[in-house]
Each structure stands twice: as structure tokens, then as C-alpha cells.
């Protein structure tokens, strides 16, 4: 038997070896799949079997101070493509029917990655004609569908564009930086409170989980819908904005470049937030036309630029209150301290001018007449350290924390700042200019308004805010927005001195008389910020009524000229409108037309920085 090699030992060994070798290959392959490629397969398995469909939540509504609905939603039809079912051959039809950019389709589908069951949004705001075309050509367009989204509609008398912001399709950059919630094509708040309150407004997407089989057919709701998450609509916002005042402010700045920020000094509520020029939010409802967008971007007056909280300007004379209150609080001066103003100030051979020779004056008079020499001298007594300290408590050089997405810090320069910027090539002359709010000192109109409000209310700094409360319609909860009140370390005395100076600046023989309103006692301060080589910026900050302030504001007109001439009447008109209501046209009583004269000072860098 062995000779015929039947069932030989050798052949048994060969067969054993073959079996073991074959099985060995299986085990090696098993190891390869389950260890080496495990993570890839595990993630594939997880994205594979459960098809997640998102459901769009309704974006929160926005009401004005009086409960009028100003930002609403309208249904909008968005073209979608499900990558799993989509046939690339139908791309030309898609392009012809809906005028879509084929690159957008490619990009969106490539972005979908493994979750090819989730429809991706291709094009917004389908017309009813396009909708019926979709129905008609549906068989030729596998995987093409539409979804109903909400788009913003605006019911506004004023523009309010910079405060509200707008919604727009999420950018690739934001998509990478906002985390997992968003998908390409989602709408997201840009700028203003739409961006700041994005998380509250947007609500939360709902998800339904569907089990699908090998061909992508839906078998059933996964786990009988137990895992489904219903969409949660966004919270509604109630603004603090007084629409009539806002509208009035926008009218006053029409044809100008500038900003008005009005704040209720009793609580920090922003009453008006005017940045001119602005734009019509209705152009941003749904799909923004490229022409409108480009026109806005290329407009030399930058209508998209939020001048209230983004633009920083040298505050000019409106900054003198800060120098004064710091000196008073530090005990460097009191009301009896008199400083001589011979009409100019000489430092290291350079002459710093004043608009008149004011003689021996105290701080109240210095504010009333906006005496430069008084503050040139005072700033040396105060020094960098105190300037920093008091600047900081009024949120100069740091954002106010207003509930708006974009806010600049402004600058209060310190010695370190100059060291860093100029090395050793700077001198004490740089400090002189800071005394009158010139030089490398920058503040936003919002910072100036909040500063003025805290002077008006007797030393409480409220975080400016434009949203009073948030309404959760699901739970019915009303959540009041934090006012962020902070008592400032200032004596009543010091504040009263400043308030007196500001009152006299309007009602005395000061520079602010153009802001006067019949029957209302107003405190304020003009400013004329140098802006070489261009015309000066016109400032006015003030509040009213002085006994019980209900409005504090800051007005700036870019390259407007003298603050007392250009900005003060606008401020007066705003205060009259707010305190007395519409109907009485504003005629400044006893306009003096006295103007601030600021002598040429050290050359300075560009004054409007868009940082």
C-alpha cells in the first residue's frame, strides 16, 4: 500500500501543510481587517447603516423694544441633492433648469463625505416656476429634491442693519471653525446680534434616524424613532432699540459717514445704533445677489463697516472728562485748582495751541470752554499710569462687552505701547496730545457712549446691550440678558464736578450750545478730532435730562468738521426726539457757533483704524 503511495504518511503531511497554510492565510487576512484596518472599517460601519436626516429648526424671531415683530421668517425653497442617489449625467439638466453652479454641486457633494444619504443644499430661493420644473423633470433628476427652510424677512422702518446683522450661507472657514453642528449650505448669522446670538437664535437641528438596507432603501425608522431628536426652534429676542429713535438717527446721518450710539444710562440698554452709511437688510433675505454684494463691498464709503463698534477714532476733546475725573479722583486737582491758559503751551521748543487765552481756570471752566492748555498741563500731573487705570475702568482699550459680534478695543497707549512701537524714538511730547484725546488714542463711538452713560448715572458702568430678553417658546421661559452693572470707584464729588462742566459746556458759554433743546437740561461735550490730511471728525457726547438722565449718546460725523457745529445739533435732535417725541422740529436755541481751535500738533498715524 505504501509502495503505491496510497494514503502515504508523506501525502498526509502535504495535505496537513496545505490545510494549515490555507487557514493561516485566512487568519492573517482576518488580522489585517480586524486590527490593521479596524478603525477605518469601524467608522465606515458607523456611517453606513444609519441614515441621518436633519430637520431645520425655525430661527428665533426678533422684536423691538415695544414688542413689534421686526425680523420674521418666511418659507424658502432650497434645492437639494442626495449624493447617494444623484446621477452625474443629470448635472447639465440641473444647471439648465435651476442655473446652479456645477462647481458648487461638485464641491457640496465632495464635502458630504461618507454620509451620502444626507441631502446637501445646492441653491436657495427656488421660484415657484423652478419648483414646478423640478416636479416635471423629477424622473430625470434622481436624488434631486427641495427642502423648506426659513429665510429672514424684515419688517423695519429703520435699517438697523449693523445692529441686526444678517444670515448668510456658512463660509468654508466658518464651517471649519464652528464645530460639528453645521453642514455646507447651512445659514448662519453674520455680524451684529444675528452672529452674537447665533446659538440662541438658530435653535437646534432635529435628526431622524432611519435604518437603511444594503441598497440604501429605508427599512424603518431606526429604533422606532426612539433616537430621533426633534428640531428645537431658536429663541426669540426682544431688543432694547427704540425704533423711532433709530429711524430718526438714520435720517440725521443720511448722506454722512458717522455713527450714533444712544444708551439708556439707567440700565445700559442701547436705544439707537446708527452707522452711516448702511444697507438694506432686505437685500440679504435668502440668497444675496452677487451684484448687490459686490456693490456693497466696493462702495468707497464702506456701508458694510460698522462704525458704531468697529471703527475707532481719536476721541478729541470728548476725552477731557476722563483726564479730569482721573485727576479729581486721584486728588491731583479739585475745583479750586486753577491752571493758567495763556493761549498756548510750550514744550521742548514746540508750541501746543489753544483756541483762546482762557486765563486762570478751574476744571469746570476748562471743560466748559474745552481749554486745551489746562489739559496739556494736567496730563503731566496725571501720568501714564493713571491714564491707563482710569481708561481701563471705563472700558477704553478693551471691548465694552456689548452683545454684538464685532467690537474693536480701541487704544489707550501706555509707555510700553510706545516702547514697543517706537523703541526709544518717542518722547514725553507724545503724552501732551493724549490730554486732549489726540495722538494714538482711539475709541469706538460705542465706548464713548458707554463712558458718557456711566458719567450720567453717577458712576455705574453697565455693559451696553441691545437685547433685553430672550424668549424660549418651547419652555415658555423668559431669560433677561445680564446687564453687567459695575459700580466705578469714583467719588460723588468728582462726578458732580464733571457733570457740572458738561452741563455748562451746553448751557453755559461753552462749545456745545448747538445741542440745546428747549425745555430739557442737557449735559455734553463737543470734540473735534484731527484727522490729517483729511478734515476733522466731529464729536459730541452728552446726556439728558441732567437731573434724571434717560439717554446718553455719542455722535461722530467723519470728516464733519467742528463737533460743536456738526455733531452737537444731531445729538440735540436725538435727545429731543427721544425725550419729547416726534413733532417738534429741532432748532438749537442760542447757537453760538463757537468753535474749537486746535493747533497743529505732532504728526500722527492714521486715525481711523479698522482693527
Amino acid at each position, binding site marked *: 500500500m505504501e509502495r*503505491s*503511495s*496510497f*494514503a*502515504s*504518511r508523506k*501525502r*498526509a503531511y502535504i*495535505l*496537513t501543510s496545505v*490545510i*494549515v497554510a*490555507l*487557514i493561516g*492565510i*485566512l*487568519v492573517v*487576512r*482576518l*488580522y489585517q*481587517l*480586524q*486590527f490593521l*484596518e*479596524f478603525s*477605518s*472599517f*469601524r467608522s*465606515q*460601519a*458607523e456611517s*453606513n*447603516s*444609519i441614515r441621518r436626516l436633519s430637520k431645520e429648526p425655525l430661527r428665533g424671531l426678533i422684536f423691538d423694544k415695544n414688542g413689534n415683530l421686526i425680523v420674521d421668517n418666511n418659507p424658502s425653497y432650497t434645492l437639494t441633492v442626495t449624493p447617494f442617489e444623484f446621477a452625474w449625467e443629470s448635472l447639465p439638466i440641473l444647471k439648465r433648469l435651476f442655473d446652479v453652479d456645477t462647481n458648487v454641486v461638485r464641491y457640496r457633494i465632495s464635502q458630504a463625505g461618507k454620509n451620502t444619504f444626507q441631502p446637501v443644499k445646492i441653491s436657495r430661493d427656488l421660484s415657484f416656476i423652478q419648483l414646478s420644473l423640478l416636479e416635471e423633470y423629477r424622473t430625470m433628476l434622481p436624488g434631486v429634491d427641495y427642502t423648506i427652510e426659513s429665510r429672514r424677512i424684515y419688517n423695519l422702518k429703520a435699517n438697523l442693519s449693523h445692529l441686526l446683522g444678517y444670515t448668510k450661507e456658512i463660509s468654508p472657514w466658518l464651517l471649519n471653525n464652528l464645530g460639528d453642528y453645521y453642514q455646507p449650505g447651512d445659514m448662519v448669522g453674520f455680524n451684529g446680534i444675528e452672529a452674537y446670538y447665533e446659538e440662541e437664535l438658530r435653535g437646534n437641528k432635529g435628526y431622524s434616524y432611519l*435604518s*437603511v*438596507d*444594503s*441598497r*440604501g432603501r429605508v*427599512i424603518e425608522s431606526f429604533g422606532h424613532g426612539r433616537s430621533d431628536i426633534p428640531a428645537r426652534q431658536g429663541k426669540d429676542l426682544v431688543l432694547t432699540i427704540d425704533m423711532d429713535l433709530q429711524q430718526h438717527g438714520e435720517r440725521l446721518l443720511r448722506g454722512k459717514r458717522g455713527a450714533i450710539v444712544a444708551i439708556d444710562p439707567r440700565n445700559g440698554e442701547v436705544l439707537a445704533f446708527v452707522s452711516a452709511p448702511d444697507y438694506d437688510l432686505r437685500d440679504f433675505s435668502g440668497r444675496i445677489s452677487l451684484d448687490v454684494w459686490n456693490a456693497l463691498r466696493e462702495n468707497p464709503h464702506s456701508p458694510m463697516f460698522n462704525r458704531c463698534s468697529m471703527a475707532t477714532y481719536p476721541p478729541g476733546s470728548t476725552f477731557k472728562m476722563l483726564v479730569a475725573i482721573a485727576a479729581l479722583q486721584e486728588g491731583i486737582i479739585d475745583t479750586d485748582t486753577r491752571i493758567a491758559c495763556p493761549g498756548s503751551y510750550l514744550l521742548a521748543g514746540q508750541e501746543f495751541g489753544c483756541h483762546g487765552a482762557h486765563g486762570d481756570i478751574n476744571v469746570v471752566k476748562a471743560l466748559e470752554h474745552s481749554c486745551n492748555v489746562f489739559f496739556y498741563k494736567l496730563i503731566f500731573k496725571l501720568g501714564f499710569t493713571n491714564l491707563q487705570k482710569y481708561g481701563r475702568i471705563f472700558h477704553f482699550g478693551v471691548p465694552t462687552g456689548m452683545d454684538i459680534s464685532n467690537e474693536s478695543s480701541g487704544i489707550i497707549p501706555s509707555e510700553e505701547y510706545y516702547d514697543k512701537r517706537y523703541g526709544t524714538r518717542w518722547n514725553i511730547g507724545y503724552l501732551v496730545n493724549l490730554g486732549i484725546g489726540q495722538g494714538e488714542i482711539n475709541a469706538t463711538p460705542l465706548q464713548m457712549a458707554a463712558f458718557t452713560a456711566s458719567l450720567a448715572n453717577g458712576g455705574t458702568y453697565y455693559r451696553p446691550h441691545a437685547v433685553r430678553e430672550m424668549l424660549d417658546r418651547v419652555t415658555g421661559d423668559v431669560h433677561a440678558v445680564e446687564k453687567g452693572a459695575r459700580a466705578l470707584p469714583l467719588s460723588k464729588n468728582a462726578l458732580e464736578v464733571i457733570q457740572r462742566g458738561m452741563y455748562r459746556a451746553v448751557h453755559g458759554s461753552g462749545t456745545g450750545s448747538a445741542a440745546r433743546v428747549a425745555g430739557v437740561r442737557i449735559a455734553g461735550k463737543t470734540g473735534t478730532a484731527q484727522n490729517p490730511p483729511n478734515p476733522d471728525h466731529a464729536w459730541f457726547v452728552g446726556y439728558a435730562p441732567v437731573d434724571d438722565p434717560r439717554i446718553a449718546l455719542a455722535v461722530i460725523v467723519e470728516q464733519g468738521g467742528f463737533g460743536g457745529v456738526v455733531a452737537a445739533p444731531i445729538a440735540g435732535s436725538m435727545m429731543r426726539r427721544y425725550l419729547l417725541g416726534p413733532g417738534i422740529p429741532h432748532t438749537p436755541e442760542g447757537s453760538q457757533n463757537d468753535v474749537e481751535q486746535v493747533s497743529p500738533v505732532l504728526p500722527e498715524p492714521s486715525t481711523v483704524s479698522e482693527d
Partner: protein
Amino acid sequence: MRNSITRFSPRHIDWLLILPILLLITAGLLSVYSATHNADLYIRFQKQVFWTVLGLLVLILVQFAPSRFFHYVAYPAYAGSVLLLVLVLLFGKTVAGNSGWFGIGGYGIQPAEFAKVATILALARFLADSTTSLHSFKDLAMAIGIVGLPWLLILLQPDFGTGLVYWAIFLMMIFWAGAEMVLLLTLLSPVLVAVLSIIGLWYFLVTALLVSILFYLMKRNLGVALLFLALNFSIGFGVQYTYAHLPEYQRSRVAVFFDPTEAPLGAGWNVIQSKVAIGSGGLTGRGYMQGSQTQLRFVPEQWTDFIFCVPAEEFGFLGALMIITLFTFLLLRGLRLARILEFRFSSLVAIGITAMLLFHIYVNIGMTLGIIPVIGLPLPFMSYGGSFFLTSMIAAGILLHAWMNRDTIA
């Protein structure tokens, strides 16, 4: 000599064979349950329980058959099987492009499966015959004919995959019967040529030529060498022609093997989903009835041909390795039985059965792992389905029977 039927003792049972089988059946039932417990498929699990019970009864019946029973029934069983294969071609019903089914009530029967065992028996009987010599061309042609007849009938169904098993069985049995290596190479050459012909014309032409030259140099038999050259050429061109005229689903299965990602929704889908299922199992798996690929039916036909995915996904590498180890035990035990059994017929049957199981196990698991083309062969003892399960049980019963009677027949 003991009377093995009246004085039965546990010694008569080949525990080394039956234990892995029982464990595999259990694993199979758990897997089929996991893959089908969703409402509309549950009937399959119930049917599988029925097959299991029936299979165990058949196993016992076969084990306790008279001692030389299978030697006697080898040729009649073979003849009966061939008859059934003819009948099924004429009257069978068609399931998924394959007309090899008889419907009995709600159950389907595939004669091609039972014919495997009958063919093993017939070939073993023929090769065990003392007058048979593999050096004789006539006897070799006879052996080829015994396998070739049912194979041709199955090919007509058409069922390419099941047909292949016959040749695997054939090669291993004649190897065991003492065929020379060069003969095996020559006999294997048509398979090689068939595969190569799909890849390219020159590959198979050169291979066919080389094999014939080698055969001539070793055996100095120009006639046979030329015959094989002609055979290989006709097979090569025949396969190329057949491939071009194959039913779409089978051609795509072959094409997809070369690149499964080519048609993720076609035949490649099975392989991709199967690999995802297995790969996602990792070391310890996702937990019983927790595998998303299995539970959400991402692997088509999972309860039949892709049953291996279930333990691999839900019990991970450890579970899969356990299954493979059990199969390895089973195969090595089959081989061991072929060595132990002195009755030449029984020894050849043991090799034939081992070959059948090896081919099924390797092709099935290899296919789920994506290293073998998808040629629907069920996994022994585990896959859902009655015919092959019963065939495997009969085969196992025959081995048990041979073990029990190892001393009575020699």
C-alpha cells in the same frame, strides 16, 4: 469481533469530530438568529431550527447504518443523484438565476448538494477497487468521467461555484489514491488555464504549452501531452467565450473580484459590506446582536453565504478565530481519519469529505474576507439553508459511521 449495534458505548462515537461540529452548529444558529431576528426574516431562523433537528436525526441514522452500507450504495446513490440532476434541469424551479431547486412545501431542495456526497462515494468506490490504476489512461478517464458528469449537469443549471467543488474533491482524492505530482499538475492545468484565460490570452496559451511540455518530458507520452494541450486550449477559449456570454450577475461577480470598489452597488457591494462588517468587529466585536452591519442588513444574503460576517462582526477577531479553529480541528480530524481508516474505501471517502469541507470553508470565508471571488458556496454547518446543511450532516455521519465500524470492516 464486537457487535457494535447492540453493544453501543461512547467509545463508538468520534468525539473529536462531533464536538467541533456541534459547536459550529450552535454558532451557526446563534448567527442566523442574529442576522434574521428582525420580524420579516425570522421565518428563516425557524426553518434553520427545523433543518438542525432533521440534520441531527439524519446524522444518527447514518452513523448507525449497517457496516458496509455506503460501500454498497455508492453506485446506486450516484446514479440516483445524476438522475435527480437531470430531473431538476427539466422540472426544477429557478431561484436567483439558478434552476437547481426542487420545491417541497415551503422548503427548497438542491440535488447538486446531495450529489456531492454521492459522487465522493462513487469515486472512492472506483478508486478503492484493486483493479483500478491511475497509471491507466482508461481508468483515469473513468475517474474524470465520474466527477465530470454531475459537474456538467450542475454547470447547466447554471451553478459555476458548486461545480468547482467537484474538481477540488477529485484532485484531493486522486492525490490520496497515489496519483503522481505531474499528473495532478496536468489535471490541475485546465483550472489554471480557465482562470488565466479571464486575465489574458497570452497567459493561458503559454501556461497550457508549458504544462504539456513538462508532461511530455516526465511521462514521454506525446499523445496525452497533445490531448491536454488541445483540452487546455479549448478550455481557455471556451472560458473566454463563456465569460463573455455568462449571465450578467455572474460575470460581474468575477469582474468585481478584481476591483470590488468598481461597482459599490452591484456585486462588489457584498464584498465591501462584508469586509466592513468583519473589519468593524475589531478584537472583541460589537456584542451579540449589536453589529450595525448585521442588524441593519448591510450584508446581502448574510444568513446564507455571508454568515461568517456575523460572528466576526459581533464577536470580533476572537469569535472569528474560534470558528476558524473549530473548522481546522474538523479538517485535521478528517485527514486523521483518512490515515487511521484501513478500509481503502472509507479512507478515500474521508479524504473526499475533507476536501469538500475544506473547499467550502476556504472559499466561503475567503470570499467574506475579500480574498476569493464571490462564488456562492455556503459555510458548512453554519449557513442557513437545508440542502447543504443536510449534505454536511450526512457526510459527517458517514465519517462517524466509518469510525464506529473501523474495526469491523477492513
